[in-house]
């Protein structure tokens, strides 16, 4: 038993060691060129170890590994321990994280070559991988929160990597603050759970306690909703999604790793991990579903008319994350295993194809010297054939082209929603509406993905003038990860689930899911392929792609029919949501801050006025100081006489 958990510790600590090594390299001369080695080696080793563990998983009893806990801090009843828990869910995530981060690390070697702060980049990336692994493995809510925040910090540092750019600086701050706003709820939720669960903070202990001593419905709902706040912030769900599009100010590999593949899925993972809690609260679950559905549709709409390639991908990420939340939102209505596996499956495939898409976009950017605005270039398929191919793979997967990975995972989510609309006693109608929304989203997804694809790669070749034709395909070190990810994006879905059911069988062994299953009434789920759903989604994807091809395949920038123009404008302006936020939240807050400053000065002035009072009295009394000694003596004596009269008459008592 000690051996596998030692392996887990090794997986966790390797990236940390990588981060420290890279950080130590920063001042060294070769730090400029060799700083990537620690990170890539650490991630690759961690990935290898994760896969090793995966292969040995069957020998693990009870489907869970717990580490020997040690106390981080404890006072009174708050007892926070550092303990790790590995189950199938965590291991899957772990594998995905380490593999994807290895790829992206490799890609970064080429992409970031020659950048200032090379070592800083890899140190923080490595730290991020450590934090992400820790987040997945943590078995204590506060430890989880710790890694959760550390992940946010790394994101902050990497978004602000080009700190000279004001937009990057602003985006970094925005990302940190918006996610942190969600974390306020997260923290309170943790405390609420702490209180509900008899002062426990270990995840497993909390689950055990709450399943045996079921708390009042409202309380568990409140706790879950507060947890959801954190998840919504981190996973960029409505209404806290606004930071993610801006986060594209970071280097593209960062966007690929953090803002597409891993960190943003932390919220999904959290909800999945806390399935036993959410299973206790249908209200929280349906809220999750609505948030997810709404976000999916909204983000898909916002992605329609963006001109920044990375921004399209960012909105698409938000939208796909919304899908995952939608899947999680069926948790009570369908069997928890189905809901979580649907979300997790999509999470995995999304990680692959979205990383691929971002890296391809990064490749484009690299080739074009940092230009990513679709209005400035086009028709690159001849100049960048490999990138084009990879992007196509990714886009097809995202759009849900049959047999590709995104197709399968999206189908599973649709299947779950359909099942929920059939089975849910209370919210059946709601789920039906959500189903329609998700179908519409699928259509829009296919459309905007291929809009971007066509605009970038089809049509006549257009290049930004300042490049003077120096456009070149990526180097081998960048191409290799692209190819690996492309293979994954194309094939992983089919291999993992629809035919083998490997994933669902594996993940179903997770103890938390089994625990969750004990409190829901939904019938058990048998993995199968629902061909109806598959055909519907095929039709939708095909329609979307066809529409996009019809409008944009000529490669001319943005020629839209008049009907669509206002809609596209609305989308391009992002529904003015940013402006609304600014008007409703930020401006009032800043106004309040200004008011506070003014009020503080006023209050200070008031106190000074009070302090000036003795001075004024003195001003009034100073006339008595007329310089006549005898007058002073007289005053003194008269005072003494009065005092003596007081004393003699006993008035002093």
């Amino acid at each position, binding site marked *: 038993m000690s051996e596998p958990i030692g392996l887990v510790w090794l997986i966790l600590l390797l990236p940390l060691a990588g981060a420290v090594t890279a950080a130590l390299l920063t001042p060294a001369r070769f730090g400029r060129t060799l700083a990537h080695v620690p990170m890539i080696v650490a991630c690759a080793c961690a990935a290898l170890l994760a896969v090793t563990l995966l292969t040995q998983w069957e020998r693990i009893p009870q489907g869970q590994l717990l580490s020997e806990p040690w106390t981080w801090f404890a006072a*009174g009843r708050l007892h926070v321990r550092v303990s790790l828990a590995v189950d199938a869910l965590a291991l899957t995530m772990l594998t995905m994280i380490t593999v994807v981060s290895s790829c992206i690390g490799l890609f970064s070697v080429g992409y970031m070559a020659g950048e200032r702060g090379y070592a800083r980049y890899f140190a923080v990336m490595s730290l991020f991988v450590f934090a992400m692994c820790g987040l997945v493995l943590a078995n204590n809510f506060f430890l989880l929160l710790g890694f959760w925040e550390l992940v946010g910090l790394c994101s902050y540092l990497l978004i602000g990597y080009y700190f000279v750019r004001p937009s990057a600086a602003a985006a970094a701050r925005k990302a940190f603050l918006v996610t942190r706003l969600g974390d306020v709820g997260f923290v309170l939720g943790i405390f609420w759970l702490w209180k509900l669960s008899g002062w426990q903070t270990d995840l497993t202990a909390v689950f055990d306690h709450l399943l045996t001593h079921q708390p009042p419905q409202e309380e568990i709902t409140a706790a879950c909703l507060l947890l959801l706040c954190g998840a919504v912030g981190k996973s960029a769900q409505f209404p806290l999604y606004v930071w993610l599009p801006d986060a594209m100010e970071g280097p593209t590999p960062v966007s690929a790793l953090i803002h597409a593949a891993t960190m943003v899925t932390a919220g999904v993972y959290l909800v999945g991990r806390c399935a036993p809690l959410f299973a206790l609260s249908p209200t929280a679950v349906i809220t999750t579903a609505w948030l997810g559905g709404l976000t999916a549709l909204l983000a898909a709409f916002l992605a329609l008319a963006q001109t920044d390639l990375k921004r399209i991908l960012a909105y698409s990420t938000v939208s796909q994350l919304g899908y995952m939340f939608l899947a999680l939102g069926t948790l009570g209505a369908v069997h928890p295993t189905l809901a979580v596996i649907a979300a997790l499956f999509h999470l995995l495939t999304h990680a692959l194809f979205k990383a691929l898409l971002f890296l391809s976009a990064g490749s484009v950017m690299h080739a074009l010297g940092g230009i990513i605005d679709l209005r400035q270039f086009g028709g690159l398929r001849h100049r960048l054939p490999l990138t084009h191919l990879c992007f196509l793979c990714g886009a097809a997967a995202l759009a849900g082209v049959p047999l590709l990975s995104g197709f399968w995972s999206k189908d599973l989510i649709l299947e779950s929603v359909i099942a929920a609309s059939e089975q849910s006693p209370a919210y059946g109608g709601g789920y039906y509406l959500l189903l329609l929304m998700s179908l519409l989203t699928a259509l829009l997804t296919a459309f905007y993905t291929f809009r971007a694809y066509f605009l970038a790669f089809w049509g006549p070749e257009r290049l930004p003038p300042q490049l003077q034709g120096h456009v070149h395909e990526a180097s081998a070190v960048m191409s290799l990860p692209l190819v690996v990810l492309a293979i994954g994006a194309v094939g992983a879905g089919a291999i993992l689930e629809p035919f083998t059911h490997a994933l669902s069988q594996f993940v179903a062994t997770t103890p938390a899911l089994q625990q969750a299953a004990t409190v829901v009434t939904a019938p058990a789920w048998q993995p199968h392929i629902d061909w109806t759903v598959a055909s519907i989604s095929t039709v939708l994807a095909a329609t979307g792609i066809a529409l996009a091809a019809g409008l944009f395949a000529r490669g001319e920038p943005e020629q839209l029919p008049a009907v669509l123009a206002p809609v596209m404008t609305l989308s391009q302006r992002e529904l003015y949501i940013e402006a609304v936020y600014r008007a409703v939240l930020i401006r009032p807050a800043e106004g309040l801050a200004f008011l506070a400053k003014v009020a503080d000065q006023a209050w200070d002035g008031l106190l000074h006025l009070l302090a000036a009072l003795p001075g004024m009295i003195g001003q009034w009394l100073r006339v008595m100081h007329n310089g006549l000694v005898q007058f002073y003596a007289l005053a003194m004596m008269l005072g003494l006489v009065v005092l003596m009269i007081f004393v003699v008459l006993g008035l002093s008592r």
Partner: protein
Amino acid sequence: MAITGRILVLLVVLFPLGAALLVPLFGRYARRPALLLALLHLGLTAALVGLTVPIMHYRAEQDNYRYTEEIVRFRPEYVPGDVAGKEGAAGRTRWNLWVFQPGPADRPGPKVQFYLGVDGLNLWLLPLASFMLIPAILASWESVTERRGLYYALLFLMQAGALGAFLAFDVILFYLFFELTLIPAFFLIGRWGSGTERRQAARTFFLYTLAGSLITLLGLISVILLFPNANGSVTFSLPDLMGNVQARLQAAQWQAQAGQPEALQQLQRQQTWLFVALLTGFLIKVPVWPFHTWQPQAYTVAPLGVTILLSALLAKLGTYGLVRIVLPLTPDAALHYGLAVVGTLAAVGIVYGALCAYNQKELKRLLAYSSLSHLGLLTAGLFAFNREGLSGAVLHMVNHGVTTGALFAALAFLWERYATTQTGVYAGLMGRYPRYAVIVFVLVLAAVGLPGLNNFVSEMLLLAGLFQARYPSGSGVGLAVVGAMGIFLSAWYLLTMLQQVFFRSVREPPLPAATGRQETLPDVRGREFWAFGIPAVLCLVLGLAPQLLLEAVRSDVRLLTVIGDQARGRAGLPPSPADPAPPLKPYQGAPPPNMPPGMMMPGGGAPPAGPRPPAAFPAPPGGAIPKGPAPLLPGAAPKVVTPRPTGQPMNQ
């Protein structure tokens, strides 16, 4: 060992005083001697802490939390001049400063004693006070050029005052040391401060805090006169006073249970007034909204070395006074009004400070308002009056001291180069001074409460304390929400500051003409690293391994919580339930070798009065009157005022 500890305790206070005398002799060359002396003092403090920590851990193992009715007192260790002589440790001193009326042995007259000692509550504040002087000296290294000897002497004096107040167990001695800090601070701000407002600022600071602390003195004197010992003699010893307060309250409570609540009500009314009086000075010192207006001005105008001490030490005097004086002496009022009134003020301060900090154009002012915000959380959490809140408060004092002090020290970096700390003139310092930026980032993130750094732990504990706190007219959940929002808001204004100052392309102000330098100084130099880099490392260490500190604090926090639970019992609230978790690691083997023999049984060796199930409190109708407390020390038995209910045994 005991003797070594006592000598160390004595030295820890007297050494800075001696240093204050010695340093001016060096005149212009006082910097290095001052630094050397500060390091020596740090060594002394470290030795003392090293001696004390095992005892505190042992204590923590000995008394796991349970609710008792015993009368609890602070149990200082290493009391110089201990009455028990060389080998024993009675925790009381025989060193008198002033004897007002020497009385007979059985009824001694009031006497101010030189009563110092270490316990869990002040243990970690000592190294804080010792340590933070080093950044203060280093931050003044080049910016202070006039009358250096006097300047460093005053810094030492301020430190001595803070240390004395931390160590004092005699309320009058505490007050003396408390005020001692004021005088050097006044001169340091007024003489070495910057700008034309410095005299005004010094005066405001002095008068404001003095006015408050005089009211506190009034409260202290009232407590002293209202709660004499059982034999009628007046005492200034804090352990005795708190014992007397508890004894009176318990006696009144028994009367109330016997159907005569008047005495209890009267005592509680009295407590309210005492509470208000005691509180005022400390609230101003912390400061808590709306008593804070002296603070931004003083912090801004004072030289940075002084600001470090002001924020790291003097503010802690206020919060420490709340823990050490207010809670044990007025427990009922603290329970009734602590969260409801002070907590509300603190909560307003959390938001208000954050809002004010957001708009500041001056970094020192920004940090001053951030202090207001952070210490608001500390104050609120402290009045939760439970173990989580109190542990968090004690820990947060240390954490906030290190973090904020180091941030101010980091500002000295800018001050030495450009002689300004306005935000508007800086941008993109990350490109200009990357190492500096890294350190400041760590410090800012610590202030923001990032996990893994020190403030996170204490803030979580404070929030946990607030979250479960209950007082007669409500619960602390709302305050916890505000506190959590405060953590968010601190990120808001601090990251905005980072964005403005460290990100974007480089912009720096012109070099100050006064220094005559043609080129700016390089990135963080060795001395500067010691000034704020080491504290940054410390932030990380404290964030990762806080349990060492918390464990040492535990037993004395328990002691305060017992008082709090007794107050809750009187207010009809359930006491904190027993600890569900077993002791973390059972203590194995013999007590630590450097344990003074008298300390084997905590609580003076008296057997506990017997644990009572929490449900039996308050007493069920017709239930047995709780057993009387076992007097721990002679002469301190509770003065039970008759009438007692007849027919029920009183086990006195």
